């Protein structure tokens, strides 16, 4: 059996190419390839070297179209026992190749070459080609033997031409030799034998047969030479004779041989043109060839020799001839037969050859799996040989099968098909159509794959190729660890270690072993380092450019939920960056990763290696860091891992694909899940580009970066320190706010920041920020109601509620001068520092309730009605307090006639563990009331109220009188304007309107009341009780603001007829405790003339019936009844009066007090025909109810002796 046979092989002149002297292997290969270019020499080209010595036996030689074909056998080959049968098996020429620089002595070269060529008995021509001779060698080389050809050093083309000439010369020589051989064969009866021929002596009958047989064989041999000489017509003629004779003598073997030759002649004649007729002819003849080879099988010497190999060779020749996709079925049938036949071959190397050929033919047919199958059979045959060279061959053959079994080394993938990365596009997008997912894991024949890899490992170990062994073991371990027992895994680990020992340190391998690496988290910029594109045209240059992160607000709290497909990320030269990578060791041994670092192909990144130990079945998240070194794009496809003594690159994409398959149940196992790691995460590598150095502000809060703990409403100054940690000065900076509770930042010292610019690298600036703690909402009140929120929920809420400072800053606008910034040629980007102020608001004073208290202090009856101005020495001071400031606030209602005081009572409790002091201040306004026009805007403080921890206290806030002077429809304006004529009013509706109208007034009022608190030395704030006050005032608002329709006043009448002096005297002598004389005192046992003044506060005439009473201290009516102590003159009850709008009416009467003491005068009136306004004011529901007006009490002090 010979490799690489085809039908045309019969026409090829076999030439041994042997190195003479020492020829470096690479040069030998080069010289050989030079020869290969001259495999076909056209007959037309050799005619000039050819001389016809005698009549050529090749009568029909096609000189213009034919050619001689050479087959170069590098290293030569031993003579075959079948040389006589097929002349093309003979080595017909020898070419020696000599590399002159390594063989200086040409004599010895010639000597050696002659010795070598002598070993080829069949050789008809020999040449020794000596390349690169020196000058000396050139000189004396010329006179050496004629078969030494020196190729002087020259350019390629010249040398090529030289060689071509030499080959043509050799072809001519061979042709002439063939002529001689043919003539010799025709004349002399050479005995042509094959090993097949019986060794036994011939019988008499056989002798006659043998003569004819010999003739047939001679004709066949001549035909062979004709083929070699490139003359198919001559060959055909001789073959026909041979066929005839062989058929007659039953020499089937030679018959088949001649038939094969005739087919070759046929093809040569057609010169490569194929058509279906030719194909059919070839098929027909070859079937006959096969049949005759089969017939020539002789049982008795089958153990020693068999024509089977010729039959198989013929089968392969036919298969190769037919090898086309359309005829696949036929070829497969032939190859299957050949494979069947291979079983019976005696020689193992024959079987090897046939398997090789079958594999090659299947490969040509496009049946890669079939080819791989037979290649593996070849490898197994090699492995049976148990020597190193066979192992190398086995390894190489197996390497060819890896593609079909899909276990190829990554090195070969990247070499032959760069477009093979099916998964690259899938890894990026999250969603992959199911079909393509499946196609990712095509042909997961894990059993086969493991076997193949194991065989590669075995052959590589035997062949002494540690890198191939390492690669195979790595592939085996990485892909099939779930199918390998822990003992097997350990074995592989030691195979890896053993291989690595034989490798030089720093060896790289394309196939990663363990661990599995995946991107765990790709930190976008920490919020402190956000990079913002700069718009130089605008003052606020950051506006319009989206922040680099996906979130406008708090990117740090939810940084891991990035589902955006591809992000752009900017890294800055010189600033360290970190990437989180998860490693998994799903195997049962301790894995030591000597070093692992990020793999960056763009070479602008310094990665920092770390070493990791991974226990069996474990995974670990590690931080890999590095520093970008120069401007430009940057990609991180994976990690470089130094493990098991070899450096490998572990791509993230591969693991992503693997995990994708695992999620679909298509891959054996998810290495991360079996290590107890969390489920599939889809983290994509963003597009990274590196920017030139930028300034970098680092912020810290003076006094610790912990949370700022404030009580509700507390106001505090916080100092924020900004330092430039970059290498470029900060030229521009701007602070803005975002997030919740922005209004809690009262002020920021922008000026301090602006004056500090430019901030040099390393410089620091401190700016004050005034904070006011917000009021806790109902939700977070629950979470933070504990004394100090230390739990995680508290922290979360705190973060979510805190306001955020956004500081946009940038370096100088102009480029820094050097050209490294070409990528960012416009302006270098700015940065954004996002500082969440960790404000933790604690519940402070809590408000329990507010209510309005009103209090009336009766006025003294005097000669004058109380003045509308507030008085210096009102008698109310005892109630309110002794401080004159407060007194001043209390004034007499001009129309009501007596002290009316309103207090807002706030009940506060202190649930905290500190003490609070409350102070209330009211801001006065002069425009509030026309009756107090002379009032100045001022603030009045009240004494502080102290609330101890866990106590409650009430704080009284005095309210001024806010009554309006007139009760009229203006209050119910809207109501009446809409349908003024209508009498029938919906009171509740109008009340609503009242409230709406009043809201503004109330707000105004409330805004002037401030309740401040202080706790300890440095904690102070303001209580936000607006809502509370509003709620308290709402119900009583009418009473506070609206005057009664009627006001009543009493006064002493001076000089009434006949009593003037009497009255005057006691009044003058009335001495009060207080220094100022009271003119309102009355003597007992004296007729005291009095006057009641009734004022109509409305704009309508009021008809009414007035009554007056006098009560003593005990509240008894002392005018009527049996024990009356007061006598009277005039009418006291049922006085009918009619008062014009905004006018007063008087009614005079006199009282005679029998007993000194304090009395109270009260007037009351029943209004007749009350209108709607009055009813509304009185909150009367039914129109029939009488409207009753009760005046405020007046105090009369009667002095005298009992």
């Amino acid at each position, binding site marked *: 059996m010979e490799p690489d046979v085809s039908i045309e092989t019969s026409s090829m002149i076999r030439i041994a190419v042997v190195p003479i002297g020492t020829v470096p292997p690479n040069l030998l290969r080069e010289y050989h390839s030079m020869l290969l270019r001259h495999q076909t020499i056209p007959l037309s080209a050799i005619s000039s070297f050819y001389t016809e010595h005698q009549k050529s036996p090749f009568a029909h030689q096609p000189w213009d179209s034919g050619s001689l074909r050479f087959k170069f056998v590098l290293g030569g080959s031993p003579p075959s026992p079948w040389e006589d049968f097929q002349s093309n098996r003979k080595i017909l020429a020898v070419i020696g190749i000599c590399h002159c620089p390594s063989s200086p002595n040409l004599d010895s070269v010639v000597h050696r070459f002659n010795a070598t060529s002598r070993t080829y008995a069949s050789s008809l021509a020999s040449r020794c080609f000596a390349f690169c001779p020196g000058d000396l060698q050139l000189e004396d080389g010329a006179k050496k033997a004629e078969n030494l050809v020196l190729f002087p050093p020259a350019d390629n083309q010249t040398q090529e031409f030289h060689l071509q000439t030499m080959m043509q010369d050799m072809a001519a020589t061979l042709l002439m030799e063939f002529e001689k051989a043919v003539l010799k064969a025709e004349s002399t009866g050479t005995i042509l034998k094959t090993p097949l021929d019986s060794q036994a002596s011939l019988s008499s009958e056989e002798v006659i047969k043998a003569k004819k047989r010999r003739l047939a064989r001679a004709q066949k041999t001549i035909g062979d030479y004709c083929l070699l000489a490139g003359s198919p017509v001559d060959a055909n003629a001789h073959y026909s004779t041979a066929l005839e004779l062989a058929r007659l003598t039953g020499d089937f073997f030679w018959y088949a041989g001649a038939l094969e030759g005739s087919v070759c002649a046929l093809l040569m004649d057609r010169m490569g043109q194929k058509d279906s007729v030719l194909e059919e002819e070839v098929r027909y003849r070859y079937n006959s060839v096969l049949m005759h080879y089969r017939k020539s099988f002789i049982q008795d010497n089958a153990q020693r020799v068999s024509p089977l190999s010729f039959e198989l060779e013929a089968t392969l020749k036919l298969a190769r001839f037919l090898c086309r996709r359309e005829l696949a*079925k036929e070829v497969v049938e032939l190859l299957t037969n050949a494979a069947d036949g291979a079983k019976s071959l005696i020689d193992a190397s024959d079987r090897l050859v046939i398997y090789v050929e079958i594999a090659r033919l299947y490969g040509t047919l496009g049946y890669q799996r079939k080819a791989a199958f037979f290649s593996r059979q070849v490898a197994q045959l090699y492995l049976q040989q148990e020597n190193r060279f066979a192992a190398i061959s086995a390894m190489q053959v197996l390497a060819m099968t890896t593609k079909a079994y899909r276990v190829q080394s990554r090195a070969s993938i990247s070499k032959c098909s760069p477009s093979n990365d099916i998964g690259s596009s899938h890894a990026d997008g999250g969603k992959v159509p199911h079909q393509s997912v499946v196609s990712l894991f095509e042909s997961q024949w894990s059993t086969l794959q493991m076997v193949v890899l194991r065989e590669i490992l075995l052959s590589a170990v035997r062949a002494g190729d540690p890198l191939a062994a390492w690669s195979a073991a790595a592939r085996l371990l990485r892909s099939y660890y779930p199918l390998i027992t822990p003992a097997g895994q350990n074995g592989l680990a030691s195979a890896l270690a053993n291989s690595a020992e034989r490798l030089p340190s720093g060896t790289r391998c394309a196939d990663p072993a363990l661990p599995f690496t995946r991107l765990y988290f790709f930190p976008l910029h920490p919020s402190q380092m956000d990079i913002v594109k700069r718009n130089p045209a605008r003052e606020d240059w950051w506006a319009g450019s989206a922040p680099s992160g996906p979130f406008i607000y708090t990117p740090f709290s939810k940084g891991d939920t990035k589902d955006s497909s591809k992000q752009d990320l900017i890294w800055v030269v010189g600033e360290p960056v970190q990437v989180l990578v998860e490693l998994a060791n799903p195997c049962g041994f301790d894995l030591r990763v000597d070093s692992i670092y990020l793999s960056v192909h763009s070479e602008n990144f310094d990665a920092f290696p770390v070493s990791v130990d991974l226990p069996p079945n474990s995974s670990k998240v590690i931080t890999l860091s590095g520093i970008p070194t120069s401007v430009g794009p940057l990609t991180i496809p994976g990690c470089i891992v130094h493990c098991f003594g070899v450096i490998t690159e572990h791509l993230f994409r591969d693991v992503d694909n693997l995990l994708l398959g695992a999620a679909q149940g298509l891959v054996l196992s998810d290495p991360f899940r079996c290590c107890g790691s969390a489920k599939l995460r889809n983290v994509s590598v963003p597009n990274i580009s590196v920017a030139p150095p930028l300034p970098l502000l680092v912020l810290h809060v003076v006094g610790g970066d912990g949370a700022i703990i404030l009580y509700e409403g507390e106001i505090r100054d916080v100092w924020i320190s900004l330092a430039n940690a970059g290498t470029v000065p900060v030229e521009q900076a701007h602070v803005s706010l975002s997030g919740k509770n922005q209004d809690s930042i009262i002020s920021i010292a922008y000026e301090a920041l602006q004056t500090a610019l430019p901030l040099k690298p390393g410089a620091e600036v401190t700016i004050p920020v005034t904070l006011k703690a917000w009021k806790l909402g109902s939700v977070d009140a629950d979470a933070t109601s504990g004394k100090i929120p230390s739990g995680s929920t508290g922290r979360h809420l705190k973060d979510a509620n805190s306001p955020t400072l956004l500081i946009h800053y940038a370096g100088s606008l102009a480029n820094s001068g050097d050209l490294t910034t070409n990528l960012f040629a416009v302006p270098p980007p700015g940065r954004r520092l996002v500082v969440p102020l960790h404000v933790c608001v604690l519940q402070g004073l809590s408000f329990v309730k507010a209510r309005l208290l009103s209090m009336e202090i009766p006025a003294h009856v005097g000669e004058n009605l109380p003045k509308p101005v507030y008085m210096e020495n009102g008698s109310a001071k005892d109630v309110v307090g002794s401080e004159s400031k407060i007194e001043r606030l209390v004034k007499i209602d001009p129309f009501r006639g007596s002290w009316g005081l309103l207090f807002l009572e706030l009940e506060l409790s202190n649930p905290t563990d500190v003490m609070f002091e409350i102070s209330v201040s009211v801001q006065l306004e002069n425009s509030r009331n026309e009756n107090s026009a002379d009032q100045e805007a001022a603030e009045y403080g009240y004494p502080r109220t102290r609330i101890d921890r866990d106590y409650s206290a009430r704080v009284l806030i005095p309210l001024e009188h806010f009554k309006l002077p007139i009760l009229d429809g203006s209050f119910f304006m809207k109501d009446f304007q809409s349908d003024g004529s209508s009498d029938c009013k919906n009171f509740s509706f109008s009340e609503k309107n009242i409230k709406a109208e009043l809201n503004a007034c109330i707000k105004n009022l409330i805004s002037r009341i401030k309740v401040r608190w202080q706790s300890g030395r440095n904690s102070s704030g303001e209580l936000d009780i607006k809502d509370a006050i509003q709620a308290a005032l709402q119900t009583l608002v009418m009473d506070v603001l609206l005057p009664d329709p009627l006001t009543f006043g009493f006064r002493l009448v001076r000089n009434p007829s006949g009593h003037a002096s009497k009255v005057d005297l006691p009044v003058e002598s009335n001495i009060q405790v207080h220094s100022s004389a009271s003119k309102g005192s009355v003597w007992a046992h004296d007729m005291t003339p009095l006057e009641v003044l009734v004022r109509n506060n409305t704009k309508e005439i009021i008809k009414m019936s007035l009554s007056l009473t006098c009560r003593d201290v005990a509240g008894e009516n002392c005018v009527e009844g049996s024990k009356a102590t007061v006598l009277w003159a005039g009418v006291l009850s049922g006085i009918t009066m009619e008062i014009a709008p905004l006018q007063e009416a008087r009614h005079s009467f006199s009282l005679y007090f029998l007993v000194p003491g304090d009395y109270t005068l009260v007037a009351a009136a029943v209004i007749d025909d009350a209108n709607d306004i009055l009813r509304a004011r009185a909150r009367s529901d039914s129109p029939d109810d009488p409207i009753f007006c009760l005046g405020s009490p007046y105090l009369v002090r009667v002095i005298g002796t009992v």
Partner: protein
Amino acid sequence: MMATTACFIIVSRNDIPIYEAEVGSAAKREDAAQLHQFILHAALDIVQDLAWTTSAMFLKAIDRFNDLVVSVYVTAGHTRLMLLHDSRNDDGIKSFFQEVHELYIKTLLNPIYLPGSRITSSHFDTKVRALARKYL
């Protein structure tokens, strides 16, 4: 009569083996089982061309290596049921394939089963082995 060697395998349309079973009565040897798979894997090349030349699902013996013959049954969805055997019992093999096809369709109807993924049902396995005993 049960075949001494038989290896049954179902190959999905994506050329992934989704079910494998050694159903022969011969003593199980690991390297033999591997060889069986290698032969079946290689036979896929032949099936690939042959399947389009006929409308029949049962392609009969399409390939052989040494004494082992590969019979193939191709479903409409181009799932291939492949049997490696050393006996010549076409009728039995055909019946076996038809019944396994039915079983396979039942598996496909399972909404949880992702077509093209490995068949892990032990019920399926039991049934297939029972059919192999019956027909092969």
